[in-house]
């Protein structure tokens, strides 16, 4: 199976129902994308598929052949991604940090689709869980990143 991840082409031979998450983490060694629940509950595994925030733990690899997959490892190669990361640093968002790859990817996807998000847009897009409760910092950082 041919996959395009962070602009690079990869050939993987694996069961077609394998979640993208584990191809990223175990087959390709891209461990920035995190395993949290495996059930699309937490969002720690969020990646971009054709620019859309997608939870890699519930994404069968067969369904993403031919798409453009972007993970946190390539985030600073993306204009919106860079803005988001800088906002994350400015607002000192992460605590334990485990969910933050997914949070950054979700914010990046939001800004790609909605460059000027309303508060409702932010609330609708930023739904990943954070056990450390960095939610207020996340919302502030997204607001900053949205200001060009």
């Amino acid at each position: 199976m041919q996959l395009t991840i962070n602009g690079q082409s990869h050939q993987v031979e694996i069961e077609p129902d394998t979640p993208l998450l584990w191809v990223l983490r175990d087959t390709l060694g891209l461990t920035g994308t995190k395993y949290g629940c495996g059930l699309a509950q937490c969002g720690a595994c969020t990646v971009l598929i054709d620019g859309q925030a997608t939870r890699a733990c519930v994404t069968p690899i067969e369904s993403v052949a031919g798409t453009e997959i972007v993970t946190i490892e390539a985030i600073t190669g993306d204009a919106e991604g860079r803005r988001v990361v800088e906002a994350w640093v400015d607002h000192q968002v992460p605590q334990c940090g485990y969910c933050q790859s997914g949070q950054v990817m979700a914010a990046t996807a939001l800004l790609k689709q909605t460059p000027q998000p309303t508060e409702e847009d932010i609330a609708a897009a930023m739904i990943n869980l954070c056990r450390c409760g960095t939610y207020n910092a996340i919302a502030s950082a997204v607001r900053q990143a949205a200001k060009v």
Partner: protein
Amino acid sequence: MKRLGLFVAVVAVVGAGSAWFAIYVPRSPFDGEARPAPGPLERGEYVARLSDCVACHTTERGKPFAGGLAMGTPLGAIYTTNITPDKQTGIGNYTLADFDNAVRRGVRADGARLYPAMPHPSYAKMSDDDIRALYDYVMNHVQPVSQPNRPADIAWPLNMRWPLAFWNAAFTEPGTYQAKMAGDDLWNRGAYLVQGPGHCGSCHTPRGLAIQEVALDERDPRYLSGALLDGWYAPSLRNDHNTGLGRWTEDDIVTYLKDGRNQHGVVFGSMMEAFNNSTQYMSDTDLKGIARYLKSLPGDRTRDGEPWQYQPVAAAAPRSAGQAIYASQCATCHGADGRGRAEWIAPLAGASSLLAPDPASAINITLNGAGRVVADGVTDAYRMPSLRSKLSDQQIAEVLTYVRATWGNHAAPVTEQAVKALRAHTDPASPDPIILQMR
């Protein structure tokens, strides 16, 4: 706990009648036949798989066929029985004729009538050969287990079984399946499996006032036309475009029953149990027969409504509450386009459970998530989570109303009351794979 309809109605069919009729032991073709010598395990085990005996006669972590599964009825729970060959607590003393009477006629060796939770009106169609093989399997290959049967929680006088004899007389058809000239061998094999051991009608055929299945074969257009049972709406298995198998090919049906999934959907609810324990074990030929037979059942455009066709969501559509919930809770798996992900995650666009008039299945799986599909010994990669603690009744009603009215789906809205009612008497699906052991 499984629920089986309204036994209360059973009482209604009780008229005056002779006590003899109510307790007599019917004749069996095997009367007087000596206990046969043990046959090959595989033969009888296969019939047991076709008939899915294990689904009711084995509990999640109980011994094979020792019974004890609670089945809810409005009158109180009844418990399935020990059908192991244990002589004291099981059916070790049953002759082949006794066994036959229980399976095909719903009559115990002592003459008492079985509750129609036992699908004997379907099993009545099973062939003598299959009954003999099943008897061999149960008597010679199942390990005896000493486990006393648990009496039903139904109080007197409703616990009296003799009225059931009249129920049997009214609602069962005597005689085994007889091949029909109109169909080829494959069709006839399929018809036999569907009507007889497979007892598909138990869930998929509507029931009448006395909870009898309103039809037992294809002569009646209501046969397998979809029914509500146990909090799940078992969809039509006829060629209904929207709510049935109209858009499925024979191969789609075979794949579904063999792998538990195809591009139209994934088994869930009661069908997941039927798949885990029964259909996946059927031979390819038998599955083809089932598919051939089901595809021969005409749909009913009047009942089924305007044929579904995929319609993309208009980009400028105003965002409803249901759409917002869908975007946050559902879209990551089922897709913003409702098309699911290949065969692994079910599409919602065009799904029969979402086009069905009754939203029970959609509500149930949203509240409680899906149990685990175990195909060929391997546990599924993806399962539907339970949303009951995340979404309120109103939110579930909103999101299901959206899903049932989007991508060309055109089913009625879901009410908050319907969600509330189902929430009250269902529990989340077990996240553990449940394998009912037959050995």
